[in-house]
């Protein structure tokens, strides 16, 4: 049972390769975003002014596969001017998207190689957890982007991925190694995998929620002006309508919440197998609980009169903060049984 060094090196090399490609993707998304004025007009058209009679013209099967302002996507797909040269923002966005697929491929190879090098699931310490969380974020985003036009969101997601990977290779780096016995369990694989996917989805949910808050404020300003002028603000004018952002964030968070519940329960099962108690208010467990309670509050808020919209969005961001504290803060500052970081 030794560590395969060449695979470990392959993994390291692939991380850096993916970071370079992600950087390119980031620039592309940034350019696309900067040129992205008009996104809001499209979505507004889809939201408000598609008269009910016109709706009949939308290909129903296509519309079923797109959400909210989906009519836009359908209309653009069947755009007769497909041959016309793409506007610069759009081309940059497409290039960025392709680069992101490529970079994510490299990152996937890296994570897999890391796992094989130590002969176990590749999330045994914080370095590996960070790589996997970045990968999960990318995969969740790419899967969503198959059905939805998310180029406006790319710059934020890839930015978060680059930050995570940067922190991983600089502060958190740990050599490939086997695990301390407490971490050798199938429940580790399941629990941490679920937590990683949640991390990816929570991140995207929080990004969309943050943009919702910005956009919503701009829309309120625009409504106050009352002269029908479009939404202003550099950021706000480049993202979809607030209502669409809100719905999208809700859907992502509603998807994550059961998974997070499962991750916590899987963790409890693992704790039971390793320490003989399924819940012991260890700092890591406490913050997982806090995160869970806050997201439950978020879902409640969305069903409570007077709490939907901005207030619920703030709760969601607080929940994400709790998730981050659990992930970074607790590993570094609290001592508990989850001595997991592989750091000294």
């Amino acid at each position, binding site marked *: *049972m030794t560590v395969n060094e060449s695979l470990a090196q392959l993994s390291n090399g692939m991380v850096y390769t993916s970071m370079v490609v992600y950087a390119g993707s980031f620039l592309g998304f940034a350019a696309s975003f900067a040129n992205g004025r008009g996104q809001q007009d499209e979505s507004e058209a889809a939201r408000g002014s598609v008269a*009910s*009679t016109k*709706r*009949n*013209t*939308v290909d*129903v099967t296509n*519309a*079923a596969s797109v*959400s909210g302002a*989906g009519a836009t996507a359908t209309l653009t797909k069947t755009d007769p001017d497909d041959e016309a040269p793409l506007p610069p923002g759009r081309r940059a966005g497409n290039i960025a998207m392709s680069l992101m697929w490529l970079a994510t491929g490299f990152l996937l190879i890296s994570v897999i190689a890391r796992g094989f090098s130590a002969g176990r699931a590749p999330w045994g310490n914080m370095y590996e957890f960070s790589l996997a969380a970045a990968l999960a974020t990318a995969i969740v985003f790419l899967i969503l982007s198959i059905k939805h036009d998310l180029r406006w969101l790319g710059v934020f997601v890839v930015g978060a991925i680059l930050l995570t990977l940067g922190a991983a290779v600089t502060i958190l780096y*740990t*050599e490939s*190694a*086997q695990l*301390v*016995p*407490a971490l*050798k369990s199938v*429940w580790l694989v399941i629990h941490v995998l679920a937590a990683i996917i949640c991390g990816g989805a929570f991140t995207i949910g929080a990004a969309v929620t943050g943009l919702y808050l910005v956009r919503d404020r701009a829309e309120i300003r625009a409504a106050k002006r009352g002269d029908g002028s479009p939404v202003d603000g550099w950021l706000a004018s480049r993202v979809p309508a607030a209502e669409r952002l*809100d*719905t999208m964030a*809700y859907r992502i968070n509603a998807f994550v*919440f*059961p998974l997070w*519940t*499962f991750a916590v329960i899987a963790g*409890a099962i*693992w704790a*039971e*197998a*390793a*320490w*003989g*108690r*399924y*819940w*012991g*208010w*260890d*700092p890591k467990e*406490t*913050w997982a*609980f*806090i995160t869970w*309670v*806050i997201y*439950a*509050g978020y879902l*409640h808020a969305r*069903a*409570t*009169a*007077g*709490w*939907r919209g901005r207030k619920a969005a703030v709760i969601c961001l607080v929940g994400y903060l*709790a998730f981050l504290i659990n992930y970074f803060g*607790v590993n570094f500052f*609290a001592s508990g049984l989850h001595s997991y970081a592989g750091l000294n």
Partner: protein
Amino acid sequence: MSTSTPGAPEAGAAVQDSTEDLSAGLGTVPVNDLPPDSMKLGFVGWSRWMWRQLTSMRTALLLLFLLAVASIPGSVLPQRPVDPARVTQYLSDNPGVGGVFDRLGFFDVFTAPWYVAIYLLLVISLAGCIVPRTRLHWKAMRAQPPRAPSRLKRLPEYESWEVSSDGAGQQTLDDTAALLRKRRWRVRTQEFDGTSGWVSAEKGYLRETGNLLFHISLLGLLLGVAIGGMFGWRGQALVIEGESFSDTITQYDTFSAGNLVDSADLPPFSFTLNDFRSGFQAGGEQEGAARLFEADVTYRSQPGAEPEEKTVEVNDPLVVDGAKAYLVGHGYAPVIQVKNAQGQVIYDAPTVFLPIDGNFTSNGVVKMPDNDPQLALQGIFAPTAALDDQRGPHSTFPAADDPAVFFSAWKGNLGLDDGIPQSVYKLDTSELEQIGIKGLRPGESWTLPDGSGTVSFTGIKQYAVFDVAYDPGKLFALVASILAILGLMLSLFIPRRRVWVKVSAAADGTSSSTVEVAGLSRTDEAGLKPAVADLATDVRAIAPPATTPTPGDPTDPDGKAH
């Protein structure tokens, strides 16, 4: 109520519009009464109002928040049930705030009165919420879908088209109803009476069922935790290789039990630790990190039962008689023999040394109160021994590659007769006189310089630390958790929808009539729009649009203007 449907009235608000509250009963978020406007209501009225407040969504939200915030000190400050030593340390480091925190219960947050109060209120609120919602849902599941509202146009999804009058009537309604029934909608129809008629259909009752299941399961989970707390027990025991443990309270180093446990009545199993193996990372960045712990035991479920073999590992406890023994720690027990001045063996045993660092530099004590004078040894054991000026004797690796014990011998009064209990791991040297110090390797002996005896280090054994736990609420809690996830998924992923299809004859008595299709969903749900569009397409096949629809409509086959 319709709290999640844009444009529909909020919970508790009077329905201003003459049309019905369209989504009534679609969800069952409870309605909060307005506060009573006078004291005339008296005690009963006020109690009822208070109860409604306690079981309102707003209160639930507030309590959830409080619970989250109240948990924070429990993760930041050391907690007594987890690590009492660190609490003591904290108190002596921060005497000022420490004392305040202590009085506030911050060192045992999760049993502090204010914490318990929050979650008890939440439990009451939850129960008070579940009961009426279950009743409402039970009724809703057996009720017919609601009547079609008079103005379907107001609904978030709406389509309409004109049909020649002989093309739409009772037949349209019947066909539509049959179609919806086949798709498992619950359907209600209002016969076409010459001017209008409708089909109303509803689907997704499982959403609310799932939501109730989730909330009830939360109560079940708490019940499981409570059962474990009352009937469960756990203790920690340290067992040296070759020695045995039997499950009685005196054999535990620490033991705690729920208040309904009779400690005399523990299951009578026993086991012997035959062999303990450990392995550590050699070389590399994580040098010395633990890689393997295995404890071979022979156990009997009760005295006289057949002995059985088992290798206990960190994630693989010994399960016997409902209790589980977990391997949670290990250490070294050097075998020490002491002879007195007359050459009689006065001590000969493996002696537990407690590790003080990650490389298992360990401290231990031997006390010989029956000798005259009383003798004692203090020892530092190092599995891989090194000695330097700064750190003194210490270990550089956790495995017993090059072991040694560094002894310090004492004689005098051990202070055991004062009646004050002493730790077996600590030596009170205040009335002792040091005889000398010496490092020994296995097999070596040391004749004490003052002639009061001989100390030999004859071998090394390992010991393992076991947590033995019994928690009868565990399975209950697990089942409740699984049901909670199941309920949650139903509640979040199943759409609850209503659709209406209405046929009306034109008011002016012309030869055309109108078909309207409309839908409403419980949440802001993406699927509603395409679902209503789909339904409209199907109904259009049943009652095709007249040949003169809206101008410019591409579905108009003739392209004729109206």
